[in-house]
């Protein structure tokens, strides 16, 4: 028996519910070998999970699940493998045990975190959302079924659920080689109270905000504006405009800005009206937010497009406190911008994550050259939610593996 195993307090483990796994498997975890990244068995296993998901009619009702099932298909994973292939001078191996804290509010996020952990060759303990999302259940079921054909991977996929209990966090952290914390600042703060072993690393997904930069002239040239409106809806309203990737500010550039705005919102409204489930309090919340910033700054204009579903707040200048006034559920700041560096204050902030663009990606370049502290992703409108192994400024394949130098 190793020193590690003696330290595992079974009493604490009884407070945990296992969707997949058991106390026993957790207790043995420190002795489970790491795997090389993108190992064939893992790729086949994930492909099997994908097949189970795709074969389940219930899954089709959840676009987020279908997207995940596509992402872990063999053909898609092989493309990833190619991107992160080894070089000659080094061998990489999984870190060992990865402990994941999934966000409580996003049903499928934990599965991406788990898949990344697996692909990088780690044994994974994943705390799934506390809320009873149907997607969580369907995913657990698919992983469980696939594991029946991959007995050897049982120690690598452990799905757990427990309250915000420090004792459990302490225990899992004490055996983690890497800790992956989703769920924002407060959750990170909680987890930081549980120490990690000296060699272990941590990846934290903090509270972030995102921005859209739209070149009005490029927008006006788009033929399928209805498609763009759908894309924009998926970036924003689909997650109540409250994901870290959801644009909160729209920066308009180019010549025909007013014309573009009119068409853009008309198209957006059509989709929002059809798809978005508006809750009564949201209108009150957004009016409150609009008045808050209007009280603080002169020249602010609050406009609603048709009704309370879309609230547009135009601001005369970009300030570094703008995002202290951010809101969600269809609350957009709009800024007419002559030169991209005017929004520097918004991006020179570690909370700034994604720039979603319509037009030329290069338009954002001057900001990066200016050395801003924010901006970790620059992606076309419609792609803000697409998960990738490079995410939120982190290259997950490097952070979830260790590199063995061979000379």
């Amino acid at each position: 028996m190793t020193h590690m195993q003696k330290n595992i307090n079974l009493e604490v483990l009884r407070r945990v519910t296992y969707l997949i796994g058991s106390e026993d498997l957790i207790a043995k975890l420190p002795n489970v070998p790491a795997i090389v990244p993108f190992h064939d068995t893992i790729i086949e296993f994930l492909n099997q999970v994908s097949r189970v998901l795709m074969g389940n009619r219930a899954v089709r009702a959840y676009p987020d699940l279908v997207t995940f099932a596509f992402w872990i298909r063999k053909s898609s994973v092989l493309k990833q493998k190619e991107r992160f292939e080894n070089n000659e001078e080094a061998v990489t191996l999984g870190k060992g045990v990865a402990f994941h804290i999934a966000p409580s509010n996003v049903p499928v996020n934990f599965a991406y975190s788990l898949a990344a952990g697996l692909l990088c060759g780690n044994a994974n303990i994943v705390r799934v959302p506390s809320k009873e999302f149907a997607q969580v259940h369907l995913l657990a079921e698919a992983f469980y079924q696939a594991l029946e054909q991959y007995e050897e991977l049982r120690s690598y996929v452990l799905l757990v659920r427990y309250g915000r209990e420090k004792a459990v966090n302490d225990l899992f952290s004490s055996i983690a080689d890497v800790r992956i914390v989703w769920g924002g600042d407060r959750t990170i703060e909680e987890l930081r109270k549980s120490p990690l072993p000296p060699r272990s690393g941590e990846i934290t997904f903090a509270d972030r905000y995102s921005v859209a930069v739209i070149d009005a002239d490029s927008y006006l040239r788009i033929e399928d504006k209805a498609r763009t409106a759908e894309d924009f809806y998926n970036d924003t309203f689909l997650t109540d405009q409250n994901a870290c990737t959801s644009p909160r500010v729209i920066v308009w550039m180019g010549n025909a800005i007013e014309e573009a705005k009119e068409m853009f919102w008309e198209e957006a409204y059509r989709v929002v009206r059809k798809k978005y489930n508006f809750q009564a309090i949201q209108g009150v919340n957004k009016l409150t937010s609009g008045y808050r910033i209007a009280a603080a700054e002169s020249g602010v204009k609050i406009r609603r497009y048709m009704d309370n579903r879309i609230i547009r707040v135009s601001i005369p200048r970009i300030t570094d406190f703008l995002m202290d006034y951010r809101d969600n559920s269809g609350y957009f700041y709009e800024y007419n911008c002559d030169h991209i560096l005017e929004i520097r204050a918004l991006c020179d902030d570690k909370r700034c994550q994604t720039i979603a663009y319509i037009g030329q990606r290069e338009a954002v370049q001057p900001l990066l050259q200016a050395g801003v502290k924010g901006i970790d992703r620059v992606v076309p409108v419609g792609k803000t939610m697409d998960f990738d192994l490079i995410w939120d400024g982190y290259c997950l394949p490097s952070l979830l593996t260790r590199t063995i130098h061979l000379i």
Partner: protein
Amino acid sequence: MSFDEIVRIAPYSLNKREKEELLTKRLLELTEHHRRQCPAYARMLESIGFDEKHVKRYTDLPFLPVRLFKELDLRSVAEEAVVKTMTSSGTSGQAVSRIYLDRTTASNQQKTMVKIVSEFTGSGRMPMILIDCPGVVKNRAMFSARGAGMLGFSIFASKKMYALDDTMRLDVEGLKEFLANYRGQRILLFGFTFMIWQHFYQELMRLKEEGITFDLSDGIMIHGGGWKKLISEAVSREVFHQRLKEVCGLTKIHDYYGMVEQTGCIYMECAYGHLHASIFSDVVTRRPIDFSECTIGESGIIQVVSAIPESYPGHSLLTEDEGVILGEDDCPCGRKGKYFKIHGRLKDAEIRGCSDTYAEKYQS
């Protein structure tokens, strides 16, 4: 138009047209007053492109969400003129409203309250039983809507007693003595709906089984604070009335609706179970989707307007309550004006997002 002119009019005497004319004039003046005196308010009006030329009726005036008073300091008088700052209920850690009163506004609140409540209790002060503990007023840390309600209604007391001690137990001996001392006089009882049920009614029931009874058939009870907790215990207004009558003979029971942000303008419940708007204020129900005005009988978000506030821009507010206007000028009780019902608080938004939500301290 000054408030002194308005306060002379009987609270439920004006019909729709008369009241509309009066309130439109006064509220337009208040809007202009606050625009001049409160720069933050002026900027808010500017942000929505408000133009008073487009105001035909007071319902066309802008409204501020009540929550703004928790987030901003909104004052239309110099800091030195503030004689009292009212705060709303707030459990620890929660933001509270701060309402700044100068002498005029504070005094007009009181005058209004007296005018309205006297319509139900008759004029003159009465011996009063506060169904709560003394701590709720004395202890500043506990000071809340409950405390504010107690203090507000205390102006009707010739003599007052707290029915509960600080452990929320009924002071049986004190109550006996108080009732003996004021036998033959009409007694005013005041408290929060849930407190009355939990700590007064339940205790009277228990005492009755022991053979100890109280006769409050000459009493008049005013209660507020909403029904949320009682509804979860399946206690309706009818049950509440019936049971109190059975246990102590109390028949005159009036609910009221009101808020710290518009103190003075309370909405009293008549014998038909309807909350009434006096001429000093009004309720407007609005559709959540676009804030357009609801028709009579259609549920919506409650907006309240009040002719009183001069020291803070709170004359037109959008609450987070939901309710329905039942009618106007035609309640069988004979009072003019709108009568309505409150359904309760709007539900908090359930929204998705990457950041975990941590339950805030829960508000009653």
